[in-house]
């Protein structure tokens, strides 16, 4: 699961991504790519993500926490 998320981010951002990557640390993580990341996660992990949660998914760690809570599975 963690690897899936990192793979998605790498694919969208086209730069190296690890557990510490965040919206401020990554070079290409702009608003459009943020939406793309959310779109890919929704599609690949088949998750609902409410409009008011989208902004908060601003780092790999926060995404992992969200996915874990949403799918009630350890990431």
């Amino acid at each position, binding site marked *: 699961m963690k690897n899936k998320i990192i793979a998605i981010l790498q694919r969208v951002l086209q730069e190296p991504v690890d557990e510490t990557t965040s919206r401020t640390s990554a070079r290409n993580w702009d608003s*459009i790519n943020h*939406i793309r990341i959310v*779109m*890919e996660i929704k*599609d690949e992990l088949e998750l609902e*993500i409410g*409009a008011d949660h*989208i*902004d908060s998914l601003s780092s790999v760690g926060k995404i992992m926490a969200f996915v874990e809570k949403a799918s009630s599975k350890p990431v």
Partner: protein
Amino acid sequence: MKVAFLGNMTLELIAREFELRSGATVYCSGYNQYQLEVLNPDSKYYAFEPDFSLFLFDGPKLLEGRSLTDVKAEIERLYEESSRRLKHQFLVNSLHFYGGSAWPFYYNTPENLKQIQAEANLFLNEQAARREHFYVLDLLSIIERRGYENLYDDSLWAYGKVRFNKKATGYIVEKLRHLMRAINGQAQKCLVVDLDNTLWGGVLGEEGIQGITLGLEGVGEVYRQLQMRLKEMKNQGVLLAICSKNDESQIQEAFQTHLHMPLQWDDFILKKINWLPKDENVRAIARELNIGEESLVFIDDQAFERELVKKNTMAVVPEFPAKPEQLLEFIADLNEACFAKFNTTEDDRMKTRQYFENQQREVLRRETGSVEDFVRSLELSLTIGQASKNLLPRLSQLTQKTNQFNLTTKRYTEPELEQLMQNPGAQVLWGRVKDRLGDYGIVLLLIGLISEETAVIDTFLMSCRVIGRFVEDEFLAQVIEHHPEVKHWRAAYDRTPKNSLVENLYDQFGFTLEGVENGRKQYRLTAAAFRGRRGLVNAFYEE
């Protein structure tokens, strides 16, 4: 190839996906900036000088705070303004109107969204027909196929006016690419088809011509429909070629003699029917037609052949559906992806319009003419005969499978029918129907039991293939006519959940209702009292 994306929603995701898949250069207008971009001669849009401009609109947002008349005027203005300054193709999506709080069942009010949607898209189609370089990207067909619940992302829409989810983005980009290919006249030219398990089910060399799965029912009907689609494609200008490992004379005979083969030998411009490797045949086809291999599309049910042709030629080789019932959707998608094109010359455009006008005239004529005229124009012929042993399988099948036009729904196995025929008073009569367009086969059955001067109609049924062809009255009339020795006819209708269609059939034919009991209507008739013969069918009674 330069493509600009403008509209009333966030389009960067679609533009980016299109860029990745097509390699084209894209320009994406800012959110909801389309009016400013088009009206401002110094805009980045004009500086980009696109070859294609795609306007993508969310329907309800486009309509917000104004009327459909305003929207139509705006679209015309967008086209006129942009086309004055650019030499481009103007593309706009078919509009989907959803949501809304108006009562959904009042179709005939101006506020009703279905009414608005129909009118808006009719308008767009008219614009595309009338104006050069104006095309409609059929978003609505994607929504019909996939359902907007599976395409629209409401949280992304609320968050950032992104209407489409990842899958929807993919479908839209694919359709856009197909449309652009068609506009650019980049269609493939020739469809190369295998025969066994492609144009029919089974291997002709093994099953024989009559043994292949191709006919009016079941999976055979799917293959028949597939052939009819291929024939339509050929009439639209696609070249058809055969590439099959078979005996050529047997195949030729199959096309000539099989009763339900819509395609003809002469529909194919080339026939490579031999035992050579298929990649060699495909290359030969390209050479002989003097077209590039990449202009060929090769379809074959066998993975081995597909791999061979894909590896050793430049032909387009799509995957083949796993199940025959998927073939019709497969060929429709293939047609759109590979063979779609537009006529671009003035002459062609005029011809197209004339063709459509003639079509509309035809439709009108057919609708205002009487049903009887139409049935007569079919030139129906009915043959009636006595059952023989070799027909038992078909007759038994008819009793087992016919549910709607079946008066007593008695099921007979072949041995049961055979035994019944031993009865000296039994008359097992079949009816076969043909019309100008084809042969329906044996579709009527009447079983009568004659004792002294009375005949009891044990079974009277008709296959649903010929319901509405007005043949049942002629059949019954002929049977009665050819049994002058019978003074009294008795018949019954036994109600089932499926045969309400014929509840009053005997009443219509002049039979007298004697009684009703437990869902069974009992009738009698003297020959002279028969009525309701329409005389629309030519009948031949085999003695």
